[in-house]
């Protein structure tokens, strides 16, 4: 058989049928459902008199809209409460497993899938959420879909897809101390641009990727969509298998052995060709900070805000000017001089136990600057519980961070966790679009370590030299 990429192997395993023009009916193994992008899909099923083909292939959780404050109190916003209740009702009606708001297993949809062993190598996984790319960290083909496609998957367990192209992003070498997967992915987006991956599935390869933990690989794959790619993936290896083994929904016994034997074939064969290749050296990646209003507007913390007056490309200059105006930054100013008001540690990008351990190790014995309001939102109830068992919550609270319940929170500010107009936030989330964290709010995307250091100093600092 011809040499194949990891993507091609998974794609080929899931083709139910193909049209003459290459349009493919692709089988979907697993489906994650949340409260925001599913109500209209369930309504569609009801109106058409259809039922789910395999309700037992889906898992539902409310995350976008849930409060991160005391859950014993009723949700203040009646519209949010209704949307969450609608998910509960739909899951009951259609027989879908739900981790409700007060279930310890509740959390951000892209945190709980891997945590439960729901996410496995070689699977096709979809969710009505663009950060479904996260699950590609396990060597799965995972991508975000719209609500009509949510309904399509519920009704048919399939999606109509055009085969994407493949891109290898190879990162060789060793990261600088205190740099992390977040810095790698922001540097990649800075290099390829926010549309560089459009039409592609990215496979991340190279020694710096292999050295990442599963948490790191999830951070990496999570932001593939910010580079335009619907999916990103990392070939599974021992790190992957060790992470999955023993999780509640993972196969066990003889089925485990059979699965692992199959998963060992999930890699790109020698001689297989990608449609595009991008290469980076890990040593050249500084801690990254976004300065603008797209994730591609990013630079190293040792750099400066760009000066549009030096830009020849008129469109680029206009976009930069507009971004700097929105962000209220001066052309050419050092990134380290940017002062912040808020810090958000959380989101499907950076809210797993490893992120919190790292953040706590930097916060320990230090105090959040008086001018800064900082919060930590664990990715799931189980992450929160684990962190509390390890005493991380005490470290955060003693340093002046708020310690919250699990949810999407200020990543998209659909619940009560919102930036006020003009407020500036160092955030471990994934999008710095205008108003993303609240109308008029200004977001700088950074790693958890950079966010903690910024909280304590009140401005960005180079974490490599920070003591």
């Amino acid at each position: 058989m011809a040499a194949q990429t990891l993507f091609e192997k998974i794609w080929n395993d899931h083709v139910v049928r193909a049209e003459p023009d290459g349009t493919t009916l692709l089988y979907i193994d697993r489906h994650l459902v949340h409260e925001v992008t599913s109500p209209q899909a369930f309504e569609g099923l009801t109106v058409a008199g259809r039922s789910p083909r395999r309700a037992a292939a889906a898992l539902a959780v409310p995350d976008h809209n849930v409060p991160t404050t005391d859950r014993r109190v009723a949700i203040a916003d009646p519209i949010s409460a209704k949307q969450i209740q609608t998910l509960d009702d739909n899951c009951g009606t259609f027989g879908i497993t739900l981790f409700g708001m007060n279930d310890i297993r509740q959390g951000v949809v892209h945190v709980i899938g891997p945590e439960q062993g729901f996410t496995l190598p070689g699977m096709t996984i979809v969710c009505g959420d663009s950060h479904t790319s996260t699950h590609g960290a396990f060597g799965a083909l995972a991508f975000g879909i719209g609500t009509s496609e949510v309904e399509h998957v519920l009704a048919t367990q399939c999606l109509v897809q055009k085969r994407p192209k493949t891109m290898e992003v190879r990162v060789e070498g060793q990261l600088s101390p205190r740099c992390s997967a977040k810095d790698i992915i922001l540097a990649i987006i800075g290099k390829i641009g926010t549309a560089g991956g459009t039409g592609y599935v990215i496979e991340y390869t190279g020694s710096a990727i292999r050295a990442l933990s599963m948490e790191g690989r999830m951070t990496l794959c999570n932001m593939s969509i910010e580079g335009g790619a619907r999916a990103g993936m990392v070939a599974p290896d021992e790190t992957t298998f060790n992470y999955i083994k023993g999780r509640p929904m993972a196969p066990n016994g003889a089925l485990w052995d059979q699965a692992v034997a199959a998963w060992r074939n999930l890699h790109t064969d020698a001689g297989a060709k990608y449609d595009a290749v991008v290469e980076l050296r890990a040593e050249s990646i500084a801690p990254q900070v976004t300065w603008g209003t797209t994730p591609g507007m990013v630079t190293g913390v040792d750099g400066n805000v760009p000066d549009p007056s030096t830009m020849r490309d008129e469109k680029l200059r206009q976009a930069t000017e507009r971004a700097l105006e929105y962000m209220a930054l001066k052309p050419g100013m050092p990134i380290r001089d940017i002062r912040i008001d808020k810090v958000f540690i959380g989101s499907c990008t950076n809210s797993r136990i490893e992120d919190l351990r790292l953040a706590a190790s930097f916060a320990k014995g230090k105090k959040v600057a008086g001018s800064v309001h900082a919060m930590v939102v664990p990715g799931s109830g189980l992450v929160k519980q684990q962190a509390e068992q390890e005493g991380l919550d005490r470290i955060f609270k003693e340093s002046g961070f708020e310690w919250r319940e699990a949810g999407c929170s200020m990543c998209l500010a659909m619940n009560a966790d919102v930036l006020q107009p003009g407020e500036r936030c160092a955030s471990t989330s994934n999008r710095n679009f205008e108003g993303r964290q609240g109308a008029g709010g200004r977001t700088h995307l950074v790693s958890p370590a950079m966010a903690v250091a910024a909280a304590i100093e009140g401005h960005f600092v180079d974490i490599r030299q920070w003591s």
Partner: protein
Amino acid sequence: MDAFTTLTGLVAPLDRPDVDTDQIIPKQFLKTIKRTGLREGLFYDWRRRKDGSQDPEFFLNQPRYQQASILLTRDNFGCGSSREHAPWALLDQGFRCIVAPSFADIFYNNCFQNGILPVVLKASDIQALFEGVATQDGYKLTVDLATQQVTTPQGTAYHFDIDPFRKDCLYRGLDAIGLTLQHAPQIGEYEQRRRTQAPWLFQDVK
């Protein structure tokens, strides 16, 4: 879904690249459990000045674009969140066609699910269309799906590419789920084969 065959309509220009779905429809409008009535949230923040009043400069607040059914814009339109509320809001405003040099993947897919035709043209052709709108009040384009052409009032025609399968579904306004369900026996055979090959994929979620 409404079929899309041919459309002659007023063109509204949004001259910005990388318009993300958070701008098209901000989060506070995602709490709905309906698909309709989202027009109110379309470009909510951009429509307003800092004091909350309507910004008369914003293109959708200008009387000349009120009846527009074709949106002309720049690269990477619809990037970011997968929210289908973005095409729902555009549709609710009256847009049936979006013309740009490139689109983000998920948004592009979502358009087809809602009877909206996303048309990709070369950046230089897009530039020419922007200049056309700027110089002529009531500037209209004719978009013909069958011949895959966009025609200006002056008669200049631009060809666009589209997948034959998608074109057919949109042209006939087909129910995508109904189409797939016609292949239910093949899906069943696939499941049976895979269940033997990779049984761990079929463990029930519970």
